[in-house]
């Protein structure tokens, strides 16, 4: 049903908080999940209640979202990499998994030719993920894709 927000540090001012500080992946949410090592914040970020401001049709101003509460197409890859950074890193290291397959799709590969994309990332795992920073990962993946 609904979850206890007792742990939440965010919810006091709802949308204002999102608009102010956390705007990046997932229309202002995803970055929190991994950027912040404080578990209570992680909980707060992903708790049902705090999503209230993401209502569709209501303006919600973060850089990666359009006013309909959807991730801008131009920011979809960044959002996805940032929100799923750790899961993606595991998938890339393993050379398979749904996160890396989904990323392949975001980069325009279909299931027939995504394998080349995935193994390219696996070979360059260190370059992409050593910095432990989603922005570096985005830049490096974009560079690699340009070489194909």
């Amino acid at each position, binding site marked *: *049903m*609904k*979850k*206890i*927000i*007792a742990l*939440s*540090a965010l*919810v006091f001012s*709802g949308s204002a908080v999102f608009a102010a500080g956390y705007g990046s992946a*997932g*229309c202002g*949410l*995803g970055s929190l*999940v991994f950027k*912040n*090592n404080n*578990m209570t914040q*992680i909980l707060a970020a*992903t*708790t*049902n*209640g*705090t*999503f*209230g*401001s*993401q*209502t*569709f*049709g209501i303006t919600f101003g973060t850089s990666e979202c359009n006013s*309909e*509460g*959807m991730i801008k*197409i131009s920011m*979809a890859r960044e959002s*996805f990499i940032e*929100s*799923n950074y*750790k*899961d993606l*890193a*595991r998938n*890339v*290291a*393993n*050379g398979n998994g*749904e*996160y890396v397959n*989904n990323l392949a*799709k*975001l980069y325009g590969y279909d*299931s027939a030719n995504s394998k080349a994309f995935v*193994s390219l990332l*696996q*070979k360059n*795992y*260190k370059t992409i993920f*050593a910095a*432990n920073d989603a922005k570096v990962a985005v830049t490096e993946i974009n560079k690699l894709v340009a070489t194909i």
Partner: protein
Amino acid sequence: MNCKRARHSNVLARFLFAFLLCASNACAVAQTLAAADKEALRQKLYRDVKDRSLWEDPYWRRLLYYERNWLGNYRSVCINSAFFLSPKGRKDPAAELYAVVDGLFYSGELENDSPECLFPERYNWLRRTLSVDERLLPPKTCRKFLEWKGRLAPESVSMLFAAGYLNNPSTLYGHTFLRLHSPGSSGADLLDYTINYAATTDTQNGILFALKGLVGAYPGQFSTIPYYLKIQEYHNLEDRDLWEFPLSLSGPEMDRLLRHGWELGKASFPYLFFTRNCSWQLLPLLDIAKPQLDLSSRFPLWVIPSDTAKAAIAASPPARPVWRPSLWKTVEWKRAQLSGPEQDYVLALARGDQPAAIKQLSALPPRRAAAVLEATADYLSWRLYARQIDKETLDARSDPLLMLRAELGEQETFSGSPSMPILLTEAHDSMRLGAGVTTIKGAGPAYELQWRFALQDILDPPDGYLPDAALEMGSLRMRYAPQQNRFYFKEAKLAHVLSLNPWDNWVRRKSWEINVGLEQADETGRQPGTSAVWDMSAGSGLAFESGLLSRELFYTLLVADSGLSPALDKNWRIGGGLKAGLLVEGGPVRALAEARYFGYALGDTAPQWSGGLSASVQLARNSAVRAEYSWRGPARECGIYFQQFVFPP
């Protein structure tokens, strides 16, 4: 610009009269004349609405969430004024409908802001119902809505059910939301959007949160959240299974869902934990998409998410559900494919001397080393979500392992997938009724009726529920003892939660229990049924699993206990003690032996010795027989009960 467009559309609409006049400066004239025509048209539409009392149309009532109150008046449940075009719209279905008619004549500059673009389904219905001539009143071009709809453009819709999660008390019953599958999304499931209904909350005070939730003080709103964030939330963070049930909506039904979904962006509803909760509010939306479902009228009293999921599944054509195992189940499945020494490597890499373990790992063939590294990375990730390690530890422990794994390149590590547990639809229903007879030592027989609102105790058939767990709310055992001619409550539990977690060196999770409610303190030595005590207790301990005979679970808990009752000396007591038990299960039979000893330091200091033996035999999916022997203080009783599970009326 505006003038040009007006003229253009007039031409299209074949306002020949206006067209002829609209030569040099005649645009203004054309508009005036058109305005006169429009006014006539508006009056005609008003008459249609009035003659047919269209505001009484069930679909209209549904679209605006009008519900009849106790005075017999219709009033919308929606509390956001932006959802209505008329200032009186919330309380007056007719006024709102006339305002919607007026909206057809919107002449503002920005079509996106027209009522028609804000409330596409309302206008879709109105245009069809009144057979509005599109040549006279052309539909607006709603660029924003169409873009939004284009982004979602689902090829199918399914209902997702996040299974219950015992470690967060207010989300015990699970959660439901809708997923919009984008075309060809197989293999890219994560990129879909979901439609989610949730409360916007404002407090970190758990009790205040619960109270406000009970009285509907929180507004609930709809949102479209990317599916990968819902997975982070339920699958990773909360370690729950996710079930996906296809709803098999047709193209026009999905169009209606999206048109109304867009309207819901402006709506908010009072969020009520038991009735108008996350799960219920999806039902009117589904009813609008596919009116023959008629799900929303089925839950007048309370709503348990698993029940709404069951209702939606039952009303949809049969389809294969999809199961996404929780993170722990994935780890467990991988662990089962590792040998004993390989499992030790995982523990050493994750929790022990990692550099030493990495050195030893090079002795393994690459394929096995890769499997160990993958399992360790998953296990570390689970440990973060289970709050056993922090982010720094995760990074420090898993980054070197992932680099090693990447260097090994393509390797066959794990194949297949965890086996799917028993479906929600095959689980027993949520409410339980029971009847039986018991003999009480020295007091003769008593007849008992039982009623339990929800959901599961440790002896109920566990299929489709969390194993080794009890989650009971509102459980009554009412008795009549003919010899004393006395009615009484043997038990009136408000809540009972028990989570037995068999000790596992990878998981290391304790077992725990909470109990709040009325019971009979027979240790006071009073007549049966005259020693009601309001009891609150909480305990924590350990459980171990064995497979000696079939499956046995031993547990022992340290318990803090308190009681309030006129039957107690000083009317109260506070103390603590120990309880230990053994659960045995095999086939349809589950049996429990339990003994408790509580001493009390404050208030009534007489100790409590109690215990019992009970067994339940499942007869069918929804029925069981239970036998119970119990003692408490000097009291002894032995009873047999028939129990029937039912879908809430």
